[in-house]
């Protein structure tokens, strides 16, 4: 088997695995059982992360480019890899499987678009045009796509949050950065209701009430009940941390692009459509990060801004190229 065959196999395998993972997440979200199907979903995402890694490595060896992101096909699969990898990290961090309901289909669509919709001549690797022959290419493009992946998963967590809290009123989250959230809720009644799972109590196992109240039962002086995060809190904070991670990456990616442009063309900023939209993305997520500091803005409003960010990232990544003008119009079929 040569490298091109390996790529074809891995390409199809990624798409198939992601499709299975998506279905598993949806089945599990709908019926809340069986447990193994949620495991299958998680394993599917991990396998997809590995197969896309293999695909990119095979492409890397074959093309001999400093980094295997030089056309749309490669960039789609790199973004797909980013989403899978960030998803695996987010699932591990949040210990929540709900995010997969939203991330898995996005990764599947990316893989499907790259391997089924793109014409075959655009899937093969090609030599780089003069403008892209620079070490900055790797720095700029890889960091940008990494930031897109992180921001997309982060905003999907916010969309999951909006889904979970769609019927809730009077949300009060603890995730605010000014510290209001650092204080105790007056009303312990939680917003996200589902039957509390009472595990058999022994001396002081932590009881994980779904409502988010965690009690420590001790024989010793009765410990004050610790309030911990509910599902909504967890999704909210996962989203915040991911966007908080994607934002520096986006900043570094834009700066790398600006410095590259200045070294190559003599202008660090030229209001090219792609540049402008990356700035718009930056501004929208900056608004999100600041909205979390604002009193009275916790909960759904920042999540709505993050969802807006989700749309804006797609415009920046793909939509701008539909215009077909500007510095970023090579390497694309539009």
């Amino acid at each position, binding site marked *: 088997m040569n490298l091109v065959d390996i790529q074809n196999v891995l390409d199809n395998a990624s798409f198939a695995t992601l499709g299975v993972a998506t279905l598993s997440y949806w089945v599990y979200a709908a019926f809340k059982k069986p447990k193994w199907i949620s495991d299958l979903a998680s394993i599917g995402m991990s396998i997809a992360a590995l197969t896309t890694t293999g695909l990119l490595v095979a492409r890397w060896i074959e093309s001999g480019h400093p980094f295997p992101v030089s056309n749309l096909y490669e960039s789609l699969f790199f973004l797909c890899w980013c989403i899978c990898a960030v998803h695996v990290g987010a699932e591990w961090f*949040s210990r929540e499987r709900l995010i997969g309901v939203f991330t898995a289909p996005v990764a599947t669509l990316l893989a499907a678009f790259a391997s089924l919709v793109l014409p075959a001549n655009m899937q093969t690797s090609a030599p780089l045009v003069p403008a892209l022959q620079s070490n900055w290419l790797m720095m700029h493009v890889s960091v940008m796509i990494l930031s897109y992946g992180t921001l997309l998963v982060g905003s999907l967590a916010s969309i999951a949050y909006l889904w979970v809290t769609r019927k809730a009123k009077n949300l009060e989250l603890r995730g605010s950065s000014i510290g209001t959230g*650092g204080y105790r809720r007056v009303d312990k009644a939680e917003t996200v209701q589902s039957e509390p799972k009472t595990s058999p109590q022994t001396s*002081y196992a*932590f009881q994980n009430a779904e409502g988010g109240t965690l009690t420590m039962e001790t024989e010793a002086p009765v410990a004050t009940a610790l309030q911990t995060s509910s*599902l909504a809190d967890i999704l909210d904070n996962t989203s915040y941390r991911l966007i908080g991670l994607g934002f520096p990456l986006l900043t570094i990616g834009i700066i790398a692009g600006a410095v590259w442009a200045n070294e190559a063309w003599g202008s*660090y900023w030229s209001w090219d459509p792609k540049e402008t939209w990356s700035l718009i993305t930056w501004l929208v997520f900056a*608004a999100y990060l*600041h909205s979390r500091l604002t009193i009275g803005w916790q909960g759904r409003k920042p999540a709505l801004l993050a969802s807006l960010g989700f749309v804006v990232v797609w415009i920046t990544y793909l939509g701008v190229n539909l215009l077909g003008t500007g510095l970023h119009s090579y390497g694309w079929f539009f």
Partner: protein
Amino acid sequence: MTSNSFKKNLFWLGVQRELLSILGSLPLAITLFLVIALCSTVGTVLPQQEGPQYYQQNYPDQGKVLFGFLTWKVILALGLNDVYRAWWFLALLILFGTSLATCSFLRQIPMLKSARKWRFYDNPKRLKKFALFTEVPATLEQLIQEFQQKGFQIHTEGQKIYGHKGLLGRVGPIIVHVSIILILLGGMLGALTGFKTQSMTPDGEQFDFHQLTSPGPWTVAPKWQVKVNRFWIDYRPDGSIKQFYSDLSIIDTDGKEKARKTISVNDPMNYDGVSLYQASWGVDSILFRVNDTPWVKIPMRPLEQVINGKETWGAIIPLDNNDQAKMVLATNGLQGTVQAILFGAKQPIPISLKPGVPAELTPSLRLEVKGVTGATGIQSKKDPGTVLVYTGFGLLMIGVMMSYLSHSQVWGFAKDGVVYFAGRTNRAQITFEREFMSVASNLQNRQSGPSDVIRAEPSALSKEPRR
């Protein structure tokens, strides 16, 4: 000071304070982010920097008006033809910068100051106000140990402790704000004192900086000239372009060469604060003759149409007075053949001319091309603001990474063999919660022996799957 003027001062002081607090407020910041974002989209949808005729043709004020209001008059009046240089867009950016600075002084620095203060509490009621609060039978030393293991810096005062980590997470946003102000200032400096210009120069000729397209009000144009010693293109075997090269010399007013370098895309030349970039290229002329006439230089112009999927340059040579017989010369670049097409006969006659190889049409008519001369598109730029902008870039990257850190604080005290402790963090709530739980359960385990350790592991906090 009379009491009246004192009152007046007090009034203005109040107004000033009110204005500043609005200027530094978060809702204004968020509004500015979104408004600037929205205005920026305009320039990516509406064609920018076209001539007035373009807008008159495409956005008429009679008949079908786009969205019912978007006529060329509106576009030109609002400066939508050049959004990013419109006065109101620049005003927005200035407001943005002012808001950033105000926010730093009014909010961030006081917050950092208060975050740096060590506070101690010994009243359970005070601690209970925190969402994360608990009490465990243990000693103060054990509590300190546990928090230190989690990376907290602990300060003690009697039986009270205060611990913190991630204070840099409060410094980061201040650096971010300062760096963005630097970038904005650098951009302004560049616009006021710099210049940027494009020139298309044929191989072997010179260009200077007498006519700058849009210099800033305080721009000083260089006196020296640039000579293009040679311009050439490297092609790949398949005919695609690999790289462009221009061999440039700087010539001073006395005609002396001061510096020389061969530039290519991604490898510019710097001289006297001016950078020279390989930006574009074209075909300038071809040397052509018929039979044994002297070589004639025929200027080539870019053609609208694309031939062979590539840009094409061409020239038309009339062969008679009534525009019937003519010859068209066309080429895709500096390499390969020149196409000559003769019109006037019944059928146009195409001829491929390879440089240096004469093509015999008839025994008495011979066409020959000696060579194709290219023109190099050089972008020249001087931007004294770059230093500020790059400093801003560097600081911005550092600041924005620091801002990921979460500033966590814990308070605790010991009383009658029980430790009471509480804590909070500003970003990583989930992680902090787990740390806090782990401290609480470790302290419990120390008291009750290792047999319960497993059950009290913090991972038991949330059993997957939740939902």
